[in-house]
């Protein structure tokens, strides 16, 4: 069904009413990096929601989007840093195995590490240069991890000469899956799960529907928005490849209704003979989470502890599919990605095509800073990771670099109160957990009870509960710790039995 509102072509530069009010609210707000909801903004959001009635999921939150900072900025290519750091573990699964030696010269696009078994991907040289070292370096996650360090030849032409053209229409599913793995493609929305694994459903499962995730629900991020507008052909090609590989009958592109320009842009360009539709979904965090998108678009729920494949669905991010559409036909590897660099501390925010391995420090130098830095977050502010050092590189899963200003000291000292049972967290949790109860159990260190009776394992750390909690209880942070303690306990248990 076509929604009347979205059928009107919205000019790219037009900002939705919601966004405009948010800008207005922002200027009158002395704490720009918190999700304060002003009255006007709330009314306008409420009205927008009432009037358009786009599909959505239950619960969730409405943080200020801040997307107007970069939504209108076309993707720009950035120069190469002097040195690129390519960690061997940029994805879920096993780390890649290096296949180059220190001192070896490599050409841009050349494979430099191979996949270690099925759930792993190879790495490719993001620039022409020389391997300076293969050593432990700081990673965003914290502990040091092995990485290939590449010194860039600035004088080189940086042409990608590597790769061999392939005709996707002639390839069967297995060949495509192999090609996708060879491209080193992982979920570029932030999940970093190897894409070829998702193309191959587990035995007994059959993929009927391909969901293309263009929600981009994290505040500040706009790279997927720009990809939908600027890389439409690649995206459509990628969708066709994924349809072919999975055998799915149809694809639905889900886009949050703060990007109606992308909806009409895509609708106008999808050839009539392809089984691809575009649907606007409500702008609400975490609409871009796999499970929430499935519920919004298909009205189905992924069984607890199960995979989307079990209900015949595979979900891919638009950025991933655009890269699939670009890389697979040319037989190339993933060497760069679109990154939104934004946040209140950034002078010239924008969307940039960034070589994998570019240090965050270089990126911030390129965009300039307004003043002192607070947190620098890889990914979005709701689920992203604050880096301990600016020397960490942009990896395959980094969709954004958000630089915040130092937090207002009065806010930083915000008191943590006991839970006042307001129930806001229950109304926010997209998987309907009881964070209030879980939080109390966490304080009491009842980690086992949290998992056994209150479904701790279903928590995907989306941050909604901690966002809304008026008592400032670091709920999500508690749950993250509880989960890792439970994992350790399980591991110890398993070790004992061996």
């Amino acid at each position, binding site marked *: 069904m076509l929604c009347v509102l979205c059928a009107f072509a919205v000019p790219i530069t037009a900002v939705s009413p919601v966004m405009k009010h948010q800008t207005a609210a922002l200027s009158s707000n002395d704490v720009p990096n918190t999700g304060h909801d002003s009255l006007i903004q709330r009314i306008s959001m409420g009205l927008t929601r009432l009037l358009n009635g786009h599909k959505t999921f239950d619960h969730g939150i409405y943080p200020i989007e801040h997307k107007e900072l970069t939504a209108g900025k076309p993707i720009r290519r950035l120069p190469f840093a002097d040195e690129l750091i390519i960690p061997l573990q940029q994805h879920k699964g096993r780390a890649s195995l290096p296949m180059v030696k220190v001192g070896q010269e490599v050409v841009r696009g050349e494979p430099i590490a191979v996949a270690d078994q099925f759930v792993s991907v190879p790495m490719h040289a993001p620039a022409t240069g020389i391997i300076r070292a293969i050593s432990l370096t700081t990673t965003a996650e914290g502990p040091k991890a092995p990485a290939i360090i590449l010194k860039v030849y600035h004088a080189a032409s940086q042409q990608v000469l590597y790769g061999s053209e392939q005709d996707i229409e002639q390839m069967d599913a297995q060949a495509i899956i192999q090609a996708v793995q060879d491209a080193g493609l992982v979920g570029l929305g932030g999940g970093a799960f190897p894409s070829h694994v998702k193309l191959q459903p587990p035995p007994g499962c059959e993929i009927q529907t391909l969901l293309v995730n263009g929600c981009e629900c994290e505040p500040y991020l706009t790279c997927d928005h720009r990809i939908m507008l600027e890389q439409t052909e690649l995206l459509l090609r990628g969708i066709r490849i994924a349809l072919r590989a999975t055998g799915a009958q149809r694809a639905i592109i889900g886009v949050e209704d703060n990007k109606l320009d992308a909806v009409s842009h895509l609708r106008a360009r999808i050839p009539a003979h392809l089984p691809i539709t575009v649907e606007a979904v409500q702008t609400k965090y975490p609409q871009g989470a796999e*499970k929430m998108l499935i519920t919004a678009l298909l009205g189905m729920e992924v069984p607890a502890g199960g995979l989307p494949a079990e209900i015949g669905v595979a979900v891919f991010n638009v950025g991933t599919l655009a890269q699939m559409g670009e890389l697979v036909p040319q037989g190339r590897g993933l060497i760069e990605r679109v990154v939104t660099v934004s946040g209140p501390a950034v002078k010239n925010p924008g969307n940039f095509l960034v070589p994998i391995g570019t240090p965050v420090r270089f990126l911030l130098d390129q965009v300039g800073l307004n003043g002192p830095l607070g947190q620098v977050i890889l990914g979005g502010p709701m689920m992203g990771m604050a880096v301990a050092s600016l020397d960490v590189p942009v990896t395959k899963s980094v969709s954004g670099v958000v630089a915040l200003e130092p937090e207002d000291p009065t806010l930083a000292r915000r008191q943590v109160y006991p839970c006042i049972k307001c129930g806001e967290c229950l109304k926010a949790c997209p998987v309907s957990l009881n964070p209030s109860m879980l939080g109390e159990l966490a304080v009491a260190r009842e980690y086992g009870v949290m998992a056994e009776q209150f479904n701790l394992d279903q928590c995907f750390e989306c941050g909604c509960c901690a966002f809304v909690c*008026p008592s*400032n209880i670091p709920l999500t942070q508690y749950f993250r710790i509880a989960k890792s303690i439970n994992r350790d306990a399980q591991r110890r248990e398993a070790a004992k039995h061996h």
Partner: protein
Amino acid sequence: MTRGIEIRTSPHLKRVVTVDKIMRTVVLALLPIAAFAVWQFGLSALLLLVTTTGVAVLTEWWFARASGRGNTVADWSAVITGLLLGLTLPPGFPLWMAAVAAFVGIALGKALFGGLGYNVMNPALVGRAFVQAAFPVAITTWTPAFAPGRFTEVIPSTLTAPFMQPIAVDDWIAGLNLDGWSGATPLALQKFEHIETPILDSFTGMIAGSAGETSALLILICGLWLAWQRMLDWRIPVSVMAGAVLMALPFWLLDPSLYPSPWFVLCSGGLMLAAWFMASDMVASPVTAKGVVIYGLFIGALTVIIRLFGGLPEGVMYAILLGNAVGPLISSWTQPRVYGAK
């Protein structure tokens, strides 16, 4: 540049609504009701409210200091307790008894459990219930609203010396020369004499009663404003009212001359104030979506049962205390269905 960057774990954004802001907003919503009480009952009501609020805050401060919990007065919750308590007492209530009520409310109702967030019951109601049992006469001694000279002199009982029986107000009331003053609240009139006060009067507050419970309309407006500010879960007051109406309706249909109309049930006594400002106390109500509805219906229905069949004209206080007591149980029965659960 690296030096000084902050690291915390996600989420890195937070809504700026905090506990003290919620509590401040509730206080703000209670102020018009308090002002109306003062306008209606004069100096005595003002002294009453000041006493309960002052003692509640002092008690909170003292217990917080004694237990080393820091300055918990700043979270404003003690102010709410004090105000609510004052609003539920008769305007001529002796001040020393009001002080006892406030102290007991905070000490037994809250500090004993570990302070804000840990209290099982609404502290204001705990205080109210204590004085109801301790001073049964004083708490049912009503004085007329809009007494002439109410802004210049206090009701005699107000200034009763500590630990003394309240000074009788009969002579004072007689001296006011009011027509038709029976000394009973609409609830008592209905219950014991089956005279229903005109709805409009109880709706607008032109009646006798506790200091802040007389104008259903004003309470409704303040409550709605609070719900609109999203500082109050509207489902609780609405289900309390629904519970009361559903319970009262069949009896009224059976015999309207004997039983009160649902309208009367809603607008009389402390039901409105209790539904909007006491049952909805976040700390003592269930957290689950289904739970709050059950809890509200339970309180509403129980209020009517106590009113109709209990020995007291008003039952909402005990209904809420009971509701508070079963709240955690209701919460645990109504755990939300987790996404993807079979």
